[in-house]
């Protein structure tokens, strides 16, 4: 169980609107591994992530995430899968009418955790991303880099085994982007697997990890 990969795609085929996106794709991401997912616009990078958090079901093949057979998962158990993942998007997706503390706490509220447990964990993850002092601010008061840190804190709140990031530095200036990448590096160093979709090849060079390219409906491992 401990050695089982955190993501396993077996023979995945996906068609969307009559167009083939993936054909017989196999992929694994080991526990604690960091990997980039690259590819041309429209190649299927976001669809790849959707297969993991079950916003898309493959036409053929099976997806296992953190020991869960995602393809066979009943609809009512999908929220449980998502709680075991940390998901970070380019567009932050913070709740605009709540302060930073409440935004992070929300990820724990939906799981029905007690207030005391929530408070302890929220302060812990805010401290991890260096934003404890901003906890009473509203999202609009924060810079893009800070907002993305809040999203990362929220993603960490449920102690996921895997962090999915869809172009997390896409909306940030280079300095903020580097600080976010440093944060992901720290998170990975703590043993959490990270799968990051990116177009930023400079960043890939600067932070070298396994890189996987989507091309011609398949996956090519292009190394470090």
């Amino acid at each position, binding site marked *: 169980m401990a050695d089982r990969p955190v993501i396993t795609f077996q023979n995945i085929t996906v068609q969307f609107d009559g167009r083939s996106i993936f054909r017989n794709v196999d992929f694994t991401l080991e526990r604690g591994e960091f990997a980039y997912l690259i590819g041309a616009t429209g190649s299927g990078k976001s669809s790849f992530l959707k297969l993991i*958090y079950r916003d898309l079901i493959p036409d053929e093949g099976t997806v296992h995430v953190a020991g869960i057979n995602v393809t066979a998962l009943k609809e009512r158990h999908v929220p449980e899968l998502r709680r075991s993942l940390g998901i970070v*998007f380019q567009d932050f997706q*913070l*709740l605009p009418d709540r302060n930073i503390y409440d935004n992070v706490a929300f990820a724990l*509220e*939906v799981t029905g955790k007690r207030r005391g447990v929530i408070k302890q964990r929220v302060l812990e993850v805010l401290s991890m991303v260096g934003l404890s002092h901003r906890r009473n601010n509203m999202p609009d008061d924060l810079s893009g880099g800070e907002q993305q840190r809040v999203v990362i804190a929220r993603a960490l709140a449920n102690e996921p085994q895997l962090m999915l990031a869809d172009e997390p530095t896409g909306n940030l200036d280079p300095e903020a982007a580097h600080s976010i990448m440093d944060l992901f590096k720290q998170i990975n160093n703590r043993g959490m697997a990270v799968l990051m979709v990116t177009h930023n090849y400079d960043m890939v060079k600067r932070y070298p990890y396994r890189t996987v390219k989507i091309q011609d409906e398949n996956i090519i491992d292009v190394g470090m």
Partner: protein
Amino acid sequence: MSLTYVIKEGVSGFRRTRLASITSIVALTIAVLLVGLMARFGYNGYEVVQTMKESIEVEVFLLDIDSGRTDRIAADLQSYPIVTETEYVSKDKAEEIFREEFGAEGESLADLNFLPASYRLHLTPDANAKEIREMVAEVEQFQGVDEVVFNQELLETLEERLELLTMAGIGIGLFILFTAIVLVFNTIRLTIYAKRNIIRTMKLVGATNGFIRRPFLLEGLIQGAIAAAIANGLHWLLFHLVIPYYIPQFGVLSWPMGEWYYLTGGMVLLSLIMGLWGSRWAARKFISQTAIG
């Protein structure tokens, strides 16, 4: 899940789509008020019909028979469940009635001995024309009975009108209710659209559809509660101030089943159910369609 969260989100959804919420409250109010009016007028109409039906008498005219036979006929008549009372009208009493009703004209007739003795039957208000016809057909066969008379035409007309009014009332009521539910559905759909980014975020962090849905259900309930309060207020104003002032001969029409709380409670319940139903329909349909990515 915290109740504070549900209330906060439910109220915020209401504020976010204020215009659409007001539209659906107005629609719900009109629907509930119309149904309340129909219920109150319908009930009073029903009471009038029942009173008229109670006044319908069946008269059983007898041949010249001895008192023993007359008593046996009375016993047989009382065995019918729809007969509440049998009143014997002797030949002398019939003569007296005739003279009262026809006055001087009746007095001019020297001998009124031809008038037969009879039984007047009082019937239960829920006796229908078919049951009465069947009873009349049987009574006509009784030995010693000459003829049975009752105002069949009036009874059938009353029954037909009541049935027609009931069917029309139910049809119109259902149509009004359906329209109101569609408007609530549409309002909640707009609220869900306005909050689609928040719904995405909720799904992202693993909120269940039930968790996401609850504030929207509360929003529907709030709309229903406001509409119920307004509709009941208007109903009271109409029946206790407007109608007695402008149509004093109507007076204050009676409440269905004699107490105010049956209809008022029914209107509140109906409004809440419609608000909840419309919002549940929209929430179930559109929340599951909101994708994360």
